[in-house]
């Protein structure tokens, strides 16, 4: 049985209703690294939010392990593009937030046991800080004292310390400069190999999708007034020969751009 099963899902917003996704049928197996690729406004983030559970489909079902998604919970770790860290907590506070709220509620947070456990949480957090290429000195900084790339590293650590089965990243590296972006891509790929976690990565960057994933799914609209559907599913071989990449990229670009609007229009909806 597939870990994530999206069953004939359609989503429409507003009234009169504007279709965003129509008849998406998708299975994602445990341990896959799936990239959702598509142009701005094609509903790829909506699909991610359905799996996250923060949004409900208009029709169809989203199942994780055969259980329908109702609301966000610990099954999925989440790294958004913006607002990924709690601004009022230090790096350490951000990373230990998950373990803390899992074991203690607001009332038990004053017991001595909490303070003992917190020391262990902090040690564990320091381990993750090292593993994600952050410096120990960053532990007591606040998010706005960190660069964008560092912030996303912390956000990934924050999600991973909870050991979720699925990691959802929504354009997580899109705001980073190219060099940092490359580092982050290498990092997330390494983490995926090491932990065997299932990753769903939303991006509009074809090269990124090809570099990262084991499977690329392209969402595109067939006509402007229709919801997006799956335009192409492309398994990416583990050791993809360099020469194939341009061809694959072209296929992906073609699939996502079959109703390509003028460049500036797609930017305006960003």
């Amino acid at each position: 049985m597939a870990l994530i099963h999206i069953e004939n899902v359609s989503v429409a917003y507003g009234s009169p209703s504007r279709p965003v996704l129509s008849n998406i049928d998708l299975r994602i197996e445990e341990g896959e690294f799936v990239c959702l690729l598509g142009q701005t406004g094609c509903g790829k983030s909506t699909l991610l939010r359905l799996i996250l559970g923060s949004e409900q489909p208009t029709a169809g079902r989203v199942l994780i392990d055969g259980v329908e998604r109702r609301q966000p919970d610990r099954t999925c770790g989440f790294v958004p593009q913006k607002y990924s860290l709690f601004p009022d907590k230090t790096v350490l506070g951000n990373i230990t937030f998950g373990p803390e709220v899992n074991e203690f509620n607001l009332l038990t947070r004053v017991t001595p046991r909490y303070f003992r456990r917190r020391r262990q949480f902090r040690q564990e957090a320091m381990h993750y800080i090292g593993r994600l290429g952050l410096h120990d000195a960053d532990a007591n900084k606040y998010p706005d004292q960190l660069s964008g790339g560092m912030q996303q590293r912390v956000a990934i650590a924050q999600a991973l310390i909870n050991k979720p089965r699925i990691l959802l990243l929504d354009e997580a590296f899109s705001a980073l400069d190219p060099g940092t972006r490359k580092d982050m891509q290498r990092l997330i790929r390494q983490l995926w190999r090491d932990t065997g976690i299932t990753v769903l990565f939303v991006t509009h960057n074809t090269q990124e999708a090809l570099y990262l994933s084991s499977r690329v799914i392209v969402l595109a609209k067939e006509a402007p007034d229709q919801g997006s559907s799956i335009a192409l599913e492309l398994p990416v071989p583990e050791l993809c020969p360099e020469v194939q990449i341009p061809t694959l990229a072209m296929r992906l670009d073609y699939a996502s751009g079959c109703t390509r609007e003028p460049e500036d229009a797609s930017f305006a909806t960003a």
Partner: protein
Amino acid sequence: MGHKLQLVHAKPSRTWAVVLSWSLFALGIGLYIQTAHRRHQDNTDDRIVPTIRQMARSTYDAAFKPAEDEEQAIAENASLPQRFFSSMLWKDTKATSRRFFYSLLLLIPAVIVGLHMGLFPYVGVFFSRFVLFFDKIVALSLLPILFIAFGIDELSKIMLIVIGVTPTIILDTCNLARSVPREQIVKAFTLGAGDFDVAYRVVLRQIAPRVLNSIRLNLKAVMLFLFAGEMIASTDGLAYRIALLRRHMGMDVIIPYVLWVALLLFLVDLAMRIVNRKLHPWFHEA
């Protein structure tokens, strides 16, 4: 042609900034002294515009002479602080401050209600219409009703402040809670947080500095309602004294009292600003 000077980009030097920023004060004080001098030449018993010397004497009396109804007389050789703590000024300040801080305490439930309204749709639906309605009521128009319902003692004055200021604070907190990015709340849930972890550890923590700023902005309203209550029905307090002395045309005490109130409010505001910065080092005012 030379460049035309853009006033928008003309920045005053430090000296000029100091001179300019104090000039209106200097002008005001100068005009006052001049007026007082002229009026005292016409009539040595003028009470409308007391001279600086008169005001200083009255201020000294108010601050360092025992209040009229003080039980035990203070020894002649008592130290200045001792004399200050048995003076009329201190007594009035104490009475007003007590009411003021009780009112501030009553704003805490307002913040809690606003937080829950902003975060939990059911609570929001339950309260919002009623609070919006209450927000439109002119609090001072309720004053007679409050005096009838709660009597003319402390409770009615504190209720006036609560009714006047809490709707603003509730609605403000509610809006702040709603403006927390959705990603933050979703993220907290994916990390295993419960509803109340999200409310108190994510949302409240994030909006706390802005809520404090909102309370700071409303300090003036708190004082306004407090003074209205004290002037109409009270037996002590700073506003009571000002209202009482109006009957005796005691401008030599009223003016120092007004300045004293302004100073106190400034100090409370400053203290809250410092506390805010110390408590929330991560917060940068936009």
